[in-house]
C-alpha cells in the first residue's frame, strides 16, 4: 500500500430498505418496478387530514437489525418531522427520528483474512427508522425543463445505520459495507439490492494531518450518489487525495467552513460540490404529533433477540472450531450466505470429512455457481449426493483424480455418487485382483524391480501408469503401496 502523509477518517451512513410488503405509515405496496404513481394513497402523498400508522413489521425488522449490531434499544422512542422542500417530498417533511432514535451504541466487527488491516470493531452511533422520499427523474430527452415525479417509493421504510468515524481506509470502508450487507442478508431484513435502491450509502470523510503544532483535521465532506460498493472505495480514494491537495494549496481546516456535500460522478470518477446542505437546525425537527411514541419492554427486546439466529461472525468461528477449516476457508464459506453454510455443514456432517468437503465446495462448486450465476439452492448436486462422493474418496473407494469425472456426471445427470460411478464403469477393485495385477506387472518389469531394490523408490511410478491402462479403476496409491511391499518381500 502507498504510504500517505495523512490519516483518512471515514464514517458511513447506510440506508437499508426493509423487507416489508407495505409502506411505513400506510398500507400501499412497496413492490419494486410498478408503473409510476400506482402505489399511493392520501397518507403517502400528504393529503390534508390523512394520518400515518406505524407498520408493525417495519419496527420489528429494525429492532432485529439493531440487536444484531449490538445496539441498545431504549425503552422509549419517537418520530420527528424533518422539514425541507423538495418536489419528491409531498408533505414538506420527512418522518424520521431525531433525538430519541429506536436504537444506539452498537458495533460491527470487520476483519480481513488477507491481513490488509487488523480486525476492528466499528462503532454504530445509531440506527433509526424513517420513511423514504419519492423519485425525481430529470427529463432531458424532450428538451423540456421539467422534472417528473413518481411517488411509488414515498413512505417506504428505511433503516438508517450511522457508523462512528472509525474507518481508516477505503479498504476498511469496503469491508464494513460487505460485512453489513452480509449481516442484513443473514437476518433476511432486506434484499440489499443496490440497483433497486434497497441499499444506499453516504460517506463522511476528512483527513488528519500530523503537523508540527499537533494533529490538524481537514473539513468534513459528505459524499453522495454512491451507487455501488466499488464506487464507495473509488470515491474515498479520490476524495482523500483531493482534500490533501486542497489542504496543501489553501490550508483550510475543519471548522473554518460549513460541512460540504459532494456528489460522486461514476463516469469521470471525481467528486463534485453540491448545493449547500441546510444546517441541522434548519430542518426544524419537532415530534410528529400525528404519531404516538413506542415503548419497548425488556421482554419484547429478548423475544426479538431470540429471532436473530447465528450470525456470520459466530459461524466463522464455529466452522473453524467444530469443522477444523482454516480462517480463510471459513470466511469463503460464510460469505456465500446462510444457505451455503447449511450446505457445507450438511455435507461435512454426512461425509465425516470436513476438510475434504471444504475443498470440494470451494473448488468445484463455487466455480460452477459463479459460472452459472446460480444459488446453492438451485444447484443440481444435493448435499446428500456430494456427501456420497466425498465419502467414496475419503474411503479410497474412488481415486480423487476420477472424483472430478464422477462429480461432472452427478452435475450433468443429477445422479448420486454411486450411480455416477456405475455409469462411468468405475468399480472398486478388490484386494485379490489388485494384488495379482501388481504381481503381473513386477514379473514384466524386472528392471523397475531392480531399480527399486537399489533404493530408487521413484521408479515404481512407471508401474502405476501401466496399471491404470490395464484397469482404469485401480487406485494409484494402492498400486504403489502393494508393488513396494511385494518388491520388499522378494
Amino acid at each position, binding site marked *: 500500500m502507498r504510504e500517505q502523509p495523512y490519516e483518512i477518517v471515514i464514517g458511513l451512513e447506510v440506508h437499508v430498505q426493509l423487507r416489508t410488503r407495505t409502506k411505513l405509515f400506510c*398500507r400501499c405496496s412497496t413492490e419494486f418496478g410498478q408503473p409510476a404513481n400506482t402505489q*399511493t394513497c392520501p397518507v403517502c402523498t400528504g393529503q390534508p387530514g390523512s394520518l400515518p400508522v406505524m407498520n408493525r413489521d417495519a419496527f420489528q425488522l429494525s429492532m432485529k437489525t439493531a440487536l444484531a449490531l449490538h445496539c441498545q434499544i431504549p425503552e422509549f422512542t419517537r418520530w420527528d418531522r424533518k422539514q425541507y422542500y423538495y418536489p419528491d417530498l409531498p408533505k414538506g417533511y420527512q418522518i424520521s427520528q431525531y433525538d430519541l432514535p429506536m436504537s444506539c451504541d452498537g458495533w460491527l466487527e470487520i476483519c480481513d483474512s488477507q491481513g490488509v488491516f487488523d480486525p476492528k470493531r466499528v462503532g454504530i452511533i445509531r440506527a433509526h427508522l424513517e420513511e423514504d422520499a419519492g423519485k425525481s427523474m430529470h427529463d432531458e430527452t424532450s428538451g423540456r425543463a421539467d*422534472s417528473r415525479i413518481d411517488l411509488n417509493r414515498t413512505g417506504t421504510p428505511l433503516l438508517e445505520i450511522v457508523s462512528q468515524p472509525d474507518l481508516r481506509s477505503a479498504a476498511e470502508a469496503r469491508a464494513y459495507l460487505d460485512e453489513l450487507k452480509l449481516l442484513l442478508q443473514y437476518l433476511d431484513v432486506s434484499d440489499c439490492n443496490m440497483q433497486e435502491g434497497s441499499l444506499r450509502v453516504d460517506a463522511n470523510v476528512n483527513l488528519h494531518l500530523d503537523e508540527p503544532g499537533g494533529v490538524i483535521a481537514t473539513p468534513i465532506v459528505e459524499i453522495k450518489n454512491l451507487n455501488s460498493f466499488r464506487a464507495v472505495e473509488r470515491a474515498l480514494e479520490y476524495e482523500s487525495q483531493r482534500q490533501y491537495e486542497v489542504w496543501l494549496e489553501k490550508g483550510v481546516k475543519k471548522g473554518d467552513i460549513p460541512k460540504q456535500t459532494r456528489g460522486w460522478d461514476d463516469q469521470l470518477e471525481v467528486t463534485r460540490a453540491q448545493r449547500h446542505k441546510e444546517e441541522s437546525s434548519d430542518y426544524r425537527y419537532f415530534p410528529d404529533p400525528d404519531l*404516538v411514541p413506542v415503548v419497548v419492554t425488556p421482554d419484547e427486546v429478548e423475544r426479538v433477540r431470540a429471532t436473530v439466529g447465528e450470525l456470520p461472525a459466530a459461524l466463522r468461528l464455529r466452522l473453524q472450531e467444530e469443522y477444523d477449516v482454516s480462517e480463510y476457508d471459513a470466511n469463503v464459506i460464510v460469505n456465500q450466505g446462510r444457505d451455503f453454510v447449511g450446505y457445507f455443514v450438511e455435507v461435512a456432517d454426512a461425509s465425516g470429512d470436513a476438510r475434504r468437503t471444504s475443498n470440494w465446495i470451494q473448488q468445484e462448486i463455487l466455480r460452477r455457481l459463479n459460472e452459472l450465476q446460480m444459488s446453492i439452492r438451485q444447484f443440481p448436486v444435493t448435499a446428500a449426493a456430494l456427501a456420497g462422493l466425498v465419502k467414496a474418496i475419503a474411503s479410497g473407494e474412488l481415486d480423487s483424480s476420477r472424483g472430478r469425472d464422477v462429480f461432472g456426471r452427478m452435475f450433468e445427470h443429477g445422479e448420486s455418487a454411486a450411480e455416477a460411478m456405475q455409469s462411468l464403469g468405475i468399480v472398486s477393485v478388490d484386494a485379490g485382483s489388485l494384488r495379482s495385477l501388481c504381481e503381473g506387472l513386477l514379473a514384466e518389469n524386472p528392471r523397475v524391480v531392480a531399480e527399486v531394490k537399489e533404493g530408487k523408490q521413484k521408479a515404481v511410478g512407471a508401474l502405476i501408469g501401466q496399471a491404470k491402462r490395464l484397469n482404469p479403476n485401480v487406485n494409484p496409491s494402492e498400486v504403489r503401496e502393494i508393488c513396494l511391499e511385494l518388491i520388499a518381500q522378494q
Partner: protein
Amino acid sequence: MKGCQVSLSLADVKKVAMLARLQLSDTELERMTHQLGQIVDYVNQLAELDTESVTPLSHAGELVNVFAEDKPRPGLSRAEVLSGAPKQDDECYRVPAVLGE
C-alpha cells in the same frame, strides 16, 4: 426552563419565510414579525411556571404503540392521485427542474 425568554427578530422571520419558501414583502415581513412575536410572547408566559419536576411530554395523548399489520390495501388510482396536480403527464407529476443537483 424558568426565566428563558425568547423574542423574535425581523431576521428570524426572514429566515423562516425562506425555509418555508414564502416570498414576503417588507410590509408583510413587519406584520408577520409582530404577529408571530405575539405568539412567542404568549408561549414565553409558560416560562414563568416552575416546571422543574415535570417530565417533558412527547405527545398530548397518553397512547403508545399504535401499529398496523403489514397487509397491502388498495390506495388511489393514478388518475385520482395526479388529478390535483397543476401539471402532469398521465404518468408522473411535472415540476420545474430542480437546480443545483
